């Protein structure tokens, strides 16, 4: 939901001393703030459960919260239907986060020599800022009929529909058959929509969005909500889960802007088991595979693509394993691996058209450069959490992606490789079933090989962020 706008690149840089002064000012501001914390309080209010019942630290789900979600936002306790609610109950939650952050990027393209040439410069900026605004509304329409609607804005207030879906739950009385239709989050065990981090690069999972340098395939982004139909199922205690989704290959964009008949699929499965004092461990897999267009009909010029006219579909895939490992009450580690592959056409920049311009259009007779290959890569992320108490969590993340085959053989083998780590904490000064409130602190460091705009050398950026994350 929330990636911070990169407008900081245009802001006036500040000196280090003032940065630290601001950090301390925020620190004392927090100390002076009233005590108070908690998820989607609309659900918590409905069922009278604390946020901590469903969230390891909100918004990240724990096992019980995952089961609640898998049951169609139902506790399966006879009181799931809205008829049991006070008629005044309105299942709406809003979430927004005021922050202070400092962002630094080492190689940004700037004018040089009075605008006659370009150069690279490091830009560092800091200041107070806002996240976008989320309006979550969801729950049951009737027993075993549920919905989720999430209009979401960027920090400027421009809205879009992040999630719109309706569900049929426990079809035929079986938890093994549930059907979801609309725009929804893919069934990632490690959910990006419930990520605990908020910085621009730390607020997403790079594995879920990776595109090789020069590649035109935007359609395989597992972290983006997608339009489609999903069938999912699980055992009564959610130990065993599966999901199969059929998706339009349009990266969640409405009004069919891309291919006329291009589809993808996302398949997951996982099994949890009781490991005694260690806790419940879970192992799973995912596969995203499909086709997306590389050619467009045009009108008004060779690059003026007509929406919905895409064709010449080419394939891609991402697959990997997921593990959720608990080591007692306080420490756990999430692990996700990925092997990805795009068609050589995507690797050579065919695929997405940006703002209606099909820079690369795979029209009849188009030929690939000699020696061009399908790009492939491998990646892994580790995300450890130390749960000090239900109110306090320390977290970290290490993520790395390594190209194993470049589409253009002459490119450096490490072009586009990513390494990033994040550390942070979230502290909920109170826990209730009415609202969520968290003091949030985070630092992210991001590095990519060979993708600076002028010199094609390495890019490094970092971001420090403090904020108050709240929802009601």
């Amino acid at each position, binding site marked *: 939901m929330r990636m911070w706008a990169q407008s900081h690149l245009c802001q006036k*840089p500040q*000196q*280090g001393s003032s940065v630290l002064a601001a*950090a301390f000012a925020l620190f004392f501001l*927090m*100390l002076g703030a009233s*005590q108070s914390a908690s998820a989607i309080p609309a659900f918590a209010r409905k*069922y*009278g*459960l*604390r946020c*901590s*019942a469903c969230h390891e630290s909100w918004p990240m789900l724990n*096992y*019980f919260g995952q089961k609640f979600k898998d049951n169609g936002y139902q*506790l*399966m*306790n*006879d*009181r799931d239907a809205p008829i049991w609610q006070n008629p005044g109950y309105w299942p709406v939650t809003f979430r927004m986060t005021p922050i202070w952050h*400092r962002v*630094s990027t*080492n190689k940004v393209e700037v004018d040089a020599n009075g605008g006659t040439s370009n150069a690279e*410069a*490091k*830009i*560092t900026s800091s200041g107070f800022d806002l996240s976008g605004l989320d309006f979550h509304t969801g729950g049951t329409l009737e027993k075993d009929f549920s919905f989720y609607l999430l209009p979401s804005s960027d920090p400027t207030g421009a809205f879009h529909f992040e999630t719109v879906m309706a569900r049929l739950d426990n079809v035929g*009385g079986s938890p093994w058959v549930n059907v979801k239709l609309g725009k929804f989050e893919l069934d990632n065990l490690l959910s990006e929509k419930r990520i605990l981090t908020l910085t621009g690069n730390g607020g997403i999972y790079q594995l879920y969005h990776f595109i090789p340098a020069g590649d035109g395939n935007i359609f395989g982004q597992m972290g983006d909500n997608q339009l489609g139909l999903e069938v999912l199922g699980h055992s*009564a*205690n*959610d130990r065993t889960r599966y999901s199969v989704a059929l998706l339009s290959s349009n990266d969640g964009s409405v009004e069919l802007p891309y291919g006329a008949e291009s589809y993808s699929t996302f398949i997951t499965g996982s099994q949890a088991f*009781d*490991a*005694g*004092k260690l*806790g*419940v461990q879970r192992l799973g897999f995912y596969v995203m595979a499909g086709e997306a267009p590389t050619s467009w009909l045009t009108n008004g010029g060779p690059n003026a693509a007509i929406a919905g006219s895409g064709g010449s579909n080419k394939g891609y895939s991402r697959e990997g394993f997921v593990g959720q490992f608990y080591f007692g*009450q306080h420490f756990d580690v999430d692990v996700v691996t990925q092997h990805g592959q795009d068609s050589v056409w995507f690797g050579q920049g065919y695929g997405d058209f940006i703002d209606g311009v099909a820079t690369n259009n795979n029209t009849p007779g188009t030929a690939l450069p000699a020696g061009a290959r399908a790009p492939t890569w491998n990646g892994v992320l580790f995300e450890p959490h130390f749960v*000090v*108490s*239900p*109110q*306090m969590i*320390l977290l970290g993340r290490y993520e790395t992606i390594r190209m194993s085959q470049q589409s253009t053989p002459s490119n450096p083998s490490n072009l586009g490789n990513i390494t990033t780590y994040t*550390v942070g*904490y979230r*502290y909920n*000064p109170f*826990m*209730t*079933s*009415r609202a969520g409130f968290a*003091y949030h*602190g*985070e*630092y992210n*460091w991001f590095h990519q090989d060979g993708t600076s705009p002028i010199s094609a050398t390495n890019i*490094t950026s*970092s971001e*420090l962020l403090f904020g108050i994350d709240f929802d009601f």
Partner: protein
Amino acid sequence: MKSLKPMRFFSAIPFTVILGLVFSTGFAVPAVAQQDVPDIGPRLPVVVKPMESHIGNISGHAAEGKSDYRRYCAGCHGDYGDANGENAVWLDPKPRDFTIATFKCRSTLTGTLPTDEDLSNTIARGLTNSNMPIWNTFTKQQRANLVAYIKIFSPRWQTEKAGTPITIPPEPAVTIESISHGKALFTKLECWKCHGPHGEGDGPSAATLTDSKDNPIRPYNFALGKNDSRFKCGSTNRDIYTIFMTGLDGTPMPSFADVIQPNDAWDLVHFLRTLQVNRKGKENEVLSAAHGAIPPYVDKTPAPAPADTKPPGGGQ
């Protein structure tokens, strides 16, 4: 353009951690308090006594259950276990008050403490018609730790031992006679006064019922039951049998262990199942085979011979 070097901000990492630790210690809500609270004066902090639970080969420890109790339970049951969590005021029925250690779902006789396994099963099963969820996502160890933790709230666990589980004889076959006898018992024992003549929870006494804390309480409505119906303490015939024989302590539902014999209890179970008119089960199959009519109960038990009657032909 001057800017901070990235390395300076590596120092932000320990700063961030320290900040978190400050919050975690300085802002932490006072831990939970103990059960011997005076009537007047401030609450004392809860002391986590070294209580244990033993379920099979798993031992639970109260100290290890504290964190999960705060995370999952305290919102309703309260930090002090006194059913005064912040959500309690909105709940109906009210959450269990652990300070009095009275539990509905037991395998033990009325008035006694439940076994550790009883409590663990209740956590895993949840309580239908209440806000108590099905916590079957916990490991057995987590449940054992929670069972040990809730014992710290009542002194009963220090002075009493859990009761002995009742013996449940094998269930006899379902017959129209057993259903008929169950119906007779339902009438004789006046179950209908609370549960209603059709088991719809609308008997003449239903509106007046309260639990041991004077909160209004509703009798179970059998008529709503379907194939997946659950009772407060389970869903099987054995569970219903157990409810008869142990009662639901803290509620008006008494134990009938001293009133009826085991076979009578099974007959009552069979009849109650027929009140679940939308449930597909052997009881309703037998009733359908009898064209939906339960014949009047005829006591075929041979009358006992008078003690002072001599056998005919005997004696000289």
